[in-house]
């Protein structure tokens, strides 16, 4: 039995071919390939992983949002043509989403995975962090292309959509951290561990960062709240909460995007 409706699978198949031949996607994979390779040559597996964490947290959301927005812009007339075929909007939406997310996630995995496979991992204890990095990168690809679909449905103006994509990235990947830091400075004298945890879970990039940094035992770098995270996230519940939060972050924008796509005029 097929997991996907036949029409969705067919759309995915052809969109994959289109996206896989895109120069941008190839450049994206190459970027991670070159960066990972260079980091491995100069620092060894452990340091490379830590540096890759920062790169992943910045680049994967940015590319998901921008590539997603540009792709959907360019596919607009084609989307119209497909909607004039005997398929439902839900099938088309699922097809477009998977056809975009799978190559992005794949390019990330290939870019990071191939250099590691070539150089080898020099410390067996790093396999779990490496796997975590891979999973987090894939999850972030899913989250931010889903957000690109929400943005695509939000406005009919090309520039406004691109502006929104970049604004979302700035907020979640750059400004949010500063905001959290300001809060810590202001309310440092109070027991703010719980609100801090909530703030971390509320932003997929921060959530991903916490999950990754805990893998490297670097929570000390995050100040004294790091201890609270250590306590919270290293237990079974914490991991479950983090995984569930990332899952919600993937599914919620997707549902939002699907709803908007269903109601929208083309």
């Amino acid at each position, binding site marked *: 039995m097929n997991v996907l409706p036949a029409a969705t699978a*067919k759309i995915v198949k*052809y969109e994959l071919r289109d996206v896989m031949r*895109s120069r941008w996607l190839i450049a994206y994979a190459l970027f991670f390939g070159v960066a990972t390779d260079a980091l491995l040559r100069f620092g060894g597996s452990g340091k490379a992983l830590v540096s890759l964490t920062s790169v992943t947290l910045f680049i994967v959301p940015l590319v998901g949002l921008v590539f997603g927005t540009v792709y959907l812009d360019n596919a607009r*007339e084609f989307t119209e043509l497909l909607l*004039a*075929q*005997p*398929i439902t909007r839900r099938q088309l939406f699922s097809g477009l989403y998977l056809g975009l997310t799978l190559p992005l996630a794949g390019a990330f995995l290939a870019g990071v995975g191939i250099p590691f496979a070539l150089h080898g991992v020099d410390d067996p204890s790093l396999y779990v962090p490496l796997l975590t990095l891979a999973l987090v990168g894939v999850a972030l690809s899913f989250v931010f292309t889903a957000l690109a679909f929400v943005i695509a449905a939000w406005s009919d103006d090309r520039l406004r959509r691109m502006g929104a994509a970049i604004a979302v990235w700035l907020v979640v990947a750059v400004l949010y951290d500063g905001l959290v830091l300001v809060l810590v400075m202001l309310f440092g004298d109070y027991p703010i561990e719980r609100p801090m945890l909530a703030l971390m879970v509320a932003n997929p990039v921060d959530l991903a960062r916490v999950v990754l940094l805990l893998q490297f035992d670097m929570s000390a770098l995050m100040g004294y709240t790091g201890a609270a995270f250590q306590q919270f996230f290293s237990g079974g519940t914490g991991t479950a909460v983090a995984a569930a939060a990332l899952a919600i972050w993937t599914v919620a924008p997707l549902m939002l995007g699907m709803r908007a796509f269903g109601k929208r005029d*083309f």
Partner: protein
Amino acid sequence: MIEIHGLAKRYGAQEVLRGLDLHVARGRVTAIVGPNGTGKTTLIKTILGLVRPDAGEVLVNGVAVSDDCAYRARIGYMPQIARFPQNLSGAELLAMLRDLRGGGGVAPAPVLDEELIASFQLAGHLGKRVGALSGGTRQKLNAVMAFLFSPELLILDEPTAGLDPVASGVFKDKILAERDGGKTLILSSHFMNELEELADDVVFLLDGTVRYSGTVDELMRRTRQANLGRAISHLMAQAVAA
């Protein structure tokens, strides 16, 4: 073939369709004309289910279009602008449509009509990336896609806008041949002499309502004008005066 009752649509403050009623007859070429921004494309897109109306209903073959998507298996649509995924070839696009409309459906697989590929001499271009094709060639591909499944109903939105005179002639012959074969065609265009050549019926839209709907001959008789362009201008002048 198509029944439309009380169709209304607004985009923000702009009322594009205001309680539009329309009947499109089977086996004829119906031209939709009217000034820019009068709702022609919105009307067409509502029939296709691309635009969701605020009020009213559209019935294609007696089935409300808001209910399902299967009715679109009988429609061929040629949009105004043809843009396809840049990195696919024309052949891949056609294969994709065949995949989507061919198997697994309730209806038997339709007979493929690839006549336009030959008459447009498109075969040599089908292997190329769509992104590398000229605008006119993409428009030809767009036309091929609309006619490919020998649909009962063809909806063509300004189809000849990007075509050269030769291709345009080929295309017009195709339209008339399809009509003679019993197909229903809806056509929007700004080229009145072209419509005069092709259309059996005319629907004149102004400000989101139907101001005239009937045969071309009847319109000519009623307005006592020499050609379709002048007859439409006459209707416009009347509407402005009223």
